[in-house]
């Protein structure tokens, strides 16, 4: 199973997602209960309308694999004065005008517009407080931030209705048309988000910890010592040498810790310098 990071895009409706599904030639998966389309480093989930569906869909896709994810909710929103079809990144989101707001950290590069978003329970033709209005964003943020850091959880909206042209003018075809021009801009932003995912740090396996007869605490300390040696860039071979002929977990720990203590980091290189031979 791949552990490469993936862009997970969550849409409420298939008609909103259609331009991405087509442009990126995503394949529909057999997975249920949510419609899922996948491609290289990208997955598109259709949650359905409303908070509950959104939260469930986020939990469902996160549970399918432990890959590191950046999350992008893309959808439509109403706004009093913005032009129909305008795309903006959400810079603040609240469930009510007086409620506590969530401000997604805007770390990934984005030069387009941003706006505040009010998340409501019912379809509405009211556009209070100069903010945009949608029905899923708050649930999206709350759910996705359980699985990724908030910098990697973002929402982008396309204006579908405003004071001049209300929700009664909307249908699936119209929604797809409004989303269509934004495929590239959204994907560029998704790539910027993906570039923020930290590289993972792994420790070369020199020891089968699972099969070692030792208490949980000793195993943890051995693991920590192996981590330290990896960070000090001590060769796996050298670590194996130190452990040679050792079967007792406590002795292994003592030897590993001695090697850590005797390894001074060397500036300008990650390699540590072992001060003296370690015989345990």
């Amino acid at each position, binding site marked *: 199973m791949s552990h490469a990071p993936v862009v997970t895009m969550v849409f409420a409706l298939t008609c909103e997602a259609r331009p991405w599904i087509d442009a990126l030639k995503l394949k529909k998966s057999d997975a249920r209960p949510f419609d899922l389309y996948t491609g290289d480093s990208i997955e598109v989930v259709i949650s359905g309308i409303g908070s509950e569906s959104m939260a469930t869909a986020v939990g469902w896709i996160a549970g399918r694999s432990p890959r590191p994810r950046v999350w992008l909710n893309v959808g439509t929103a109403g706004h009093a004065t913005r032009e129909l079809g305008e795309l903006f990144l959400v810079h603040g989101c609240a469930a009510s005008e007086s409620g506590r707001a969530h*401000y997604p*950290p805007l*770390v990934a590069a984005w030069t387009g517009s941003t706006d505040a978003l009010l998340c409501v329970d019912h379809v509405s033709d009211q556009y209070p407080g100069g903010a945009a209005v949608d029905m899923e964003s708050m649930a999206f943020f709350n759910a996705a931030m359980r699985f990724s850091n*908030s910098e990697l*959880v973002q929402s982008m909206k396309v204006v579908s209705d405003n004071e001049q042209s209300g929700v009664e003018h909307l249908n699936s075809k119209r929604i797809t048309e409004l989303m269509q021009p934004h495929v590239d801009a959204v994907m560029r932003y998704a790539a910027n988000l993906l570039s923020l995912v930290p590289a993972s*740090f792994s420790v070369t396996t020199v020891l089968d910890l699972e099969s070692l007869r030792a208490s949980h605490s000793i195993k943890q300390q051995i693991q920590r010592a192996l*981590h330290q040696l990896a*960070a000090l860039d001590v060769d796996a071979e050298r670590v194996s040498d130190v452990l040679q002929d050792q079967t007792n977990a406590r002795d292994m720990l003592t030897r590993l810790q001695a090697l850590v203590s005797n390894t*001074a980091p060397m500036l300008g290189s990650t390699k*540590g310098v072992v001060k003296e031979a370690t015989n345990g």
Partner: protein
Amino acid sequence: MVDTLYIEQAVLELETTAAVVSRYPKARQIVIDRYGEVFNSHAQNFRTQKQNPSLILAEKQNAKVMPAPAQYETGGGAHYYFSHMLNCVYDCRYCFLQGMLRSANYLLFVNYQSFIEEIKSIAARHVDDEKPVWFFSGYDCDSLAYEPVTRFAETFVPAFEDIPNAVLELRTKSTQVRSLLAREPINNVVVAYSLSPEPVAAELEQGAPTLAKRLDALKKLQDHGWRIGIRFDPVVWHAGYDQTYAQAIDSVFTKLDPERIDSVTLGGFRLPKGFFKTMLKLYPEHWLFNAGLSEQAGLVSYQPQLEREVLDAVAAQCRRFVSPDKLFVYYSDEAQQSQP
């Protein structure tokens, strides 16, 4: 370059706010109620945010000046610290702010006048003390690094002219000393530079000026008549540290006049355990968090024997140039013993 400004409603009209905002004409501005909504929200990642921090302009409410821990003392009387800003434009890998704060955004408290009033009222309480009362700035940020935007020193330094029983210590690594060189020095302001040998700075102090540039700034300040302090804190253990520090110490004390240095302080790399755990999670691969450390009584620091060996060696180098009464060495195990 900051591309997002969060501005608290309460400070929208302040002059300092307007001055800061004018530095970033292209930044998006987001008006917020309280900074905590942005700064303290959950699931933030310091390392990720450090790639592109936003700037938050806010009002510091409640106490602005706090009693300083004993280890800040450099021979003065009562000591306090204050933070007009949290976070820093530099990115030192050892910086405890990474472990203490959820956010890497710059949080600037722009109600400078309330800070100054509180400093004055605390100083007034110490007016009969034998020694002056010290106010430290630059523990939760660098005092001067953001000067062109914040005008912090330009505002606070003159205020200390009116508080003769107080000393302001500006802790910095920055070369932004123009405002200090443009005016007459004040005898109750000390500019304390955190220094590291060039190879340590290059590896661990991203974005900060090189040792040579810091020394140039120090020299100018000293020649201009400002009181200066030197901080090797943290001293970082590495292969060949004795030569690395010896070279740096030679260059520091041959460039500057050791007689006219206020104090020199040394301390090993150390962190409260909770901060250390957070920082190890942020940078699991970094050697700094994986070399020579042990934990005692909630503090992660170099193993006691190693710390003594390293600090004693660096202190011995310093003693070649500075008198013992000006040199302060902080050993983690002694700090722990003196804790209540």
